[in-house]
């Protein structure tokens, strides 16, 4: 189980990622360049207007959204970090002889998180429109 991790292997496994990343960065600009050379051009004022069901747009679209919307974002950050803590735990759960300990620790952890979850529910933080 305790094999020595060869760091060069880890770096090697990310070389294809780097290659694909470069291609992914280049592809949309290249496609749009191709479109620019192939497509016809014509100008008119109405064409560059934002679409709003055919009428002239009123005001700015970038409004201040209801602040309660951000409660979801905060709840998400809490629970997503909880899930992140579960990942390393998941890999060592089996085959290391610490199953009982791992179970108890995880139950305590989930209990604490569930406590927060019930609090959020009771506070109606997870309700779309109040």
């Amino acid at each position, binding site marked *: 189980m305790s094999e020595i991790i060869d760091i060069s292997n*880890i770096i090697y*496994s*990310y*070389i*294809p*990622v*780097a*290659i*694909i*990343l470069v*291609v*992914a*960065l280049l592809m*949309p*600009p290249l*496609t*749009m360049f*191709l*479109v620019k050379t*192939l*497509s*016809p*051009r*014509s100008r008119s004022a109405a*064409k*560059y*207007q*934002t*679409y*709003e069901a055919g009428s002239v*747009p009123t005001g700015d*679209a*970038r409004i201040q*959204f209801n602040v309660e*919307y951000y409660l*979801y*974002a905060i709840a*998400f950050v809490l*629970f*997503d970090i909880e*899930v*992140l803590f*579960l*990942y390393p735990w*998941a*890999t060592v*759960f*089996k*085959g290391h002889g610490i*199953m*009982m300990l791992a*179970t108890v620790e*995880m139950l305590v952890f*989930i209990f604490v998180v*569930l406590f927060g*979850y019930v609090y959020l*529910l009771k506070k109606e933080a*997870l309700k*779309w*429109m109040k």
Partner: protein
Amino acid sequence: MELPEILFNPLVRGILGLCLMGGIFLGAMAVIWFERKLSADIQQRYGPMRTGPHGILQLVADAIKLFSKEDIIPKNADRLLFVSAPILLLGSIFLMLVAIPFGAVVINGITYPIAATEMDISILYIEAMSAISIVGIFMVAYSANNKYSLLGAFRNFARMIGYEVPLGICIVSVAVMAGSLNIVEIAEAQSPLWFIVMQPLGFVVFIIAMLADMGRLPFDQNESEEELIAGWITEYTGMRFGLGFFAEYMHLILGSMLITLLFLGGWNLPAALTANTILGIILPTAFFLGKVVLVILGIIMLRWAVPRFRIDQVVDLSWKRLLPLSLLNLGWVIALGLLGV
């Protein structure tokens, strides 16, 4: 027979990744055609018929049309964000694809997955890369300065962050059962019994969360054509729209692959079937891709069976139903582990 050493060279693997990228482009075209034909069948229409036999060249014609369309950037738009958003949309898909095996080759009883790279933490990496597309979608909508787009993007954000959590917990449950975060090892851990049998509840939660993650009906609140024109993508025209559209279909294929790899047994076949070298090269990949096609078929048909949910129903479903259910599934997996399964 041994595989030559050159096939394990990271640069060669990178080229394999580029081939898989081309493959998924063709796959997305096929899926779009397939969806149009199947939807037409369900509605008792013909669908595309004119271009090629049964309209199979329709997507080629569409691509030519999109390439020759003028690229319009609205004058109220934030140009930098508007132009660079497709990089995030496609980058998220392609970086996901690097770590996902597209099948496997079995030679002399040893399995070699067909993937650009193998990582110890590939499933965590895939989930992280898949989450980037949310930022891309929001960039499109925010930069366009269009009210429909922005509403679609706000809905998209609320939906995605709700489903990311149960999705993550289901992946953790799978990882606990397989004892690894490597997607190849997870697929191989299902050799006698698929994880859909071991944790059916996890499968149901995962497939719902994955549908929401892919933005397929009944979870396409970011688009909802009937109320928001085209949702987040309203201001994208021509090829820019094409790139976003393609990214969605590639996400559908990769999501179906993840469902197959994590719960439907991947490419595992009885050893007797893969003993022959030629069968060992063909059968596991064919078996895997066959299951992926069935999953895609199911997802497409689901589109015409279930109406779109309202956004508050969707958000409630994820936070108040799926999250507790996924934790319950994790408890079930832990209990199975303690019993020594």
